[in-house]
């Protein structure tokens, strides 16, 4: 090159890395979580101006302060995990289903409707079976509508599923107003259609069911032919086509599964936990679950951990809000969860890419900071 002196290399450039060894990946992620925790502790200290140990005690207390609280933590983790499991196969396929909220609500509505209309006229076991079938159907239908349009017309599924959330919400509001004669729009506790309680613990059944689903989903994604097809479609639709995979079929089948699992979550919310129906039963968990699933790299077993982290801080913030009512609100949990997630999302960059700094003029120093 003739004009070598005028060509300036930029300070650094970014290149794609080969796959890092797993322990390096996890080291980066743990560092990110740690940094996020430090930042949020600083935030707490600045805002509350209390000894941080006292605050952490309060956060811990909110989760494990008593036997009931501990089980509630497990139960909430289980529900969040269940929704995260539901969205995972779709996301792995790069089908951006952000309609889990609506699919869960559809499941809630279907199972509550069963109780409301036929609850008193059939035996409880039969009612539970009908509820389960209806909830699965409702969730699956809610998910499969966008999937069909995606498969046939390539309709944008992110926006479609997002809209379906609100239709489900208003549909519930509609039925609540129809069912409740007083016009208050709040349905009391439903007497029928309760799931059996194992021992004295009302949360145990939910936790066990969801753990079963987690294991099943792990096996399904990792060892079954379906799971393999999902992975291929997610990597490259064209590769899948050349390999003879029917992409449309895979999309629709996966979304039926995804929606069905969301429907089951709705069933659990109505039949095993709340025994009533409100528009806020899903409570934004349909969205949080996406982050839970993403952070766990779509691995159902890691998801147990990530779901727990989210629930831990949300419950902790609730406790902080009740312990320090003037300084804290329960929304603080969302801030902490947001910070942690933003750090973890950001750290994926350092796993996927390497930053190579410009070599200094003097030959000695070759800085490769991220290595």
């Amino acid at each position: 090159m003739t004009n070598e002196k005028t060509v300036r290399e930029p300070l650094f450039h970014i290149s794609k890395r080969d796959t890092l060894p797993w322990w390096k990946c996890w080291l980066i992620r743990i560092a990110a979580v740690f940094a996020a925790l430090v930042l949020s502790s600083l935030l707490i200290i600045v805002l509350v101006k209390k000894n941080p140990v006292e605050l952490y005690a309060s956060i811990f207390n909110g989760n494990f302060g008593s036997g009931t609280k501990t089980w509630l933590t497990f139960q909430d983790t289980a529900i969040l995990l269940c929704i995260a499991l539901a969205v995972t196969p779709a996301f792995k396929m790069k089908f951006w289903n952000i309609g889990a909220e609506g699919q869960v609500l559809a499941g809630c509505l279907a199972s509550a409707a069963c109780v409301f209309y036929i609850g008193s006229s059939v035996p409880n076991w039969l009612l539970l079976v009908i509820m389960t079938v209806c909830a699965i159907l409702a969730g699956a239908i809610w998910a499969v509508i966008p999937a069909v349009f995606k498969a046939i017309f390539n309709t944008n599924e992110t926006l479609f599923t997002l809209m379906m959330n609100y239709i489900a919400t208003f549909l519930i509001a509609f039925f609540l107003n129809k069912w409740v004669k007083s016009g208050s729009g709040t349905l009391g506790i439903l007497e029928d259609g309760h799931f059996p309680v194992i021992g004295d613990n009302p949360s145990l059944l939910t936790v066990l069911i969801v753990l079963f689903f987690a294991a099943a989903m792990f096996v399904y994604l990792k060892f079954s032919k379906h799971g393999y097809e999902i992975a291929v479609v997610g990597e490259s639709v064209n590769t899948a086509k050349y390999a003879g995979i029917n992409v449309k079929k895979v999309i629709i089948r996966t979304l039926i599964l995804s929606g069905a699992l969301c429907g089951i979550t709705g069933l659990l919310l109505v039949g095993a936990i709340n025994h009533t129906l409100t528009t806020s039963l899903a409570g934004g968990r349909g969205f949080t679950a996406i982050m839970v699933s993403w952070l766990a790299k779509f691995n159902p077993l890691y998801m147990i951990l990530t779901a727990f982290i989210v629930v831990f801080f949300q419950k902790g913030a609730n406790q902080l809000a009740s312990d320090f009512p003037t300084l804290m609100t329960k929304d603080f949990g969302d801030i902490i969860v947001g910070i942690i997630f933003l750090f973890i999302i950001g750290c994926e960059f350092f796993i996927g890419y390497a930053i190579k700094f410009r070599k200094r003029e003097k030959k000695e120093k070759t800085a490769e900071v991220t290595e």
Partner: protein
Amino acid sequence: MGVFVSFLSGAVRLGTTFLYGSTGETLTEKSGHLNLGIPGIMCFGALGGCIGVSMVGSVPVLTVLVAIIFSFCFAGLLGLLYSFLTVTLRCNQNVTGLTITTFGVGCTNHFISQVNTSSFSRASTHFTNLFTFHENLGWFGELFLSYGIMVYLAIAIAILASLFLTKTKKGLYLRAVGENPATADAAGISVTAYRYVATIIGSGIAGLGGLFYIMDYLTGSWEYTIDAMGWLSIALVIFTVWKPNFGILGSFLFGGLYILANYVAVSFAMMNILKMIPFFVTIVVLIVTSIVGKKETQPPASLGLNYFREER
């Protein structure tokens, strides 16, 4: 007649919230970034504006000005965070956006409890009253001149954004970046710069929607429903097939549909069905445009995809 006019002007006022949100989101999406953080960003913008108002108090022109600047900057800051994560760090846009929403809504709901809201209802009069002579002009005055400054600002921004996208060179470049970043890059357009600027300015504009909703539409009373407005704004972007000038009428239509339930004599139950219509219509538009497949009505081709030059 009187009821009808008040319905229309109500639709315009609520619709302005959506107009800000959708104009901002359209600019962002034109650069190829689907910013699902808009609900959180609108909340954050409202928070910024409210902090501005609580600092200045109730001084006529200054309050509005400071609130708008604060709101724009706060929302832009969150937009900067989003673009840093998605453009520079190339994180997944959907996940980042949803996290920004969680974070923004959480921050807003938390910090608003620490803001002194007592001056808001007085301050809001500076937002809602612009002209005083409209009362003498009957229905014409109520329909066209009865709004606060931010309604006209929203329309102006939407028209400017539309002109920018269709008539200017920079607008063409921005669209090129959203359609095919590799080609744009090869043509010497800085993809990174366009994506950053579009996202930050888009977020700032959307943030004004949050401020407008609190200060003008709700006349200064705080309510935790801005994020629902944000999702509707995203719906509106699709409804208007990524055209800010369609957005003006589209947003008023959405506003009308949203408040229609208060004006027609239907049962409580049916009100919910009416409120469902905007979302339902959006789905229909989404399906129809994807079936028809006309180039003009498609989403930007690389919407939701990050660009990395070395990737083939």
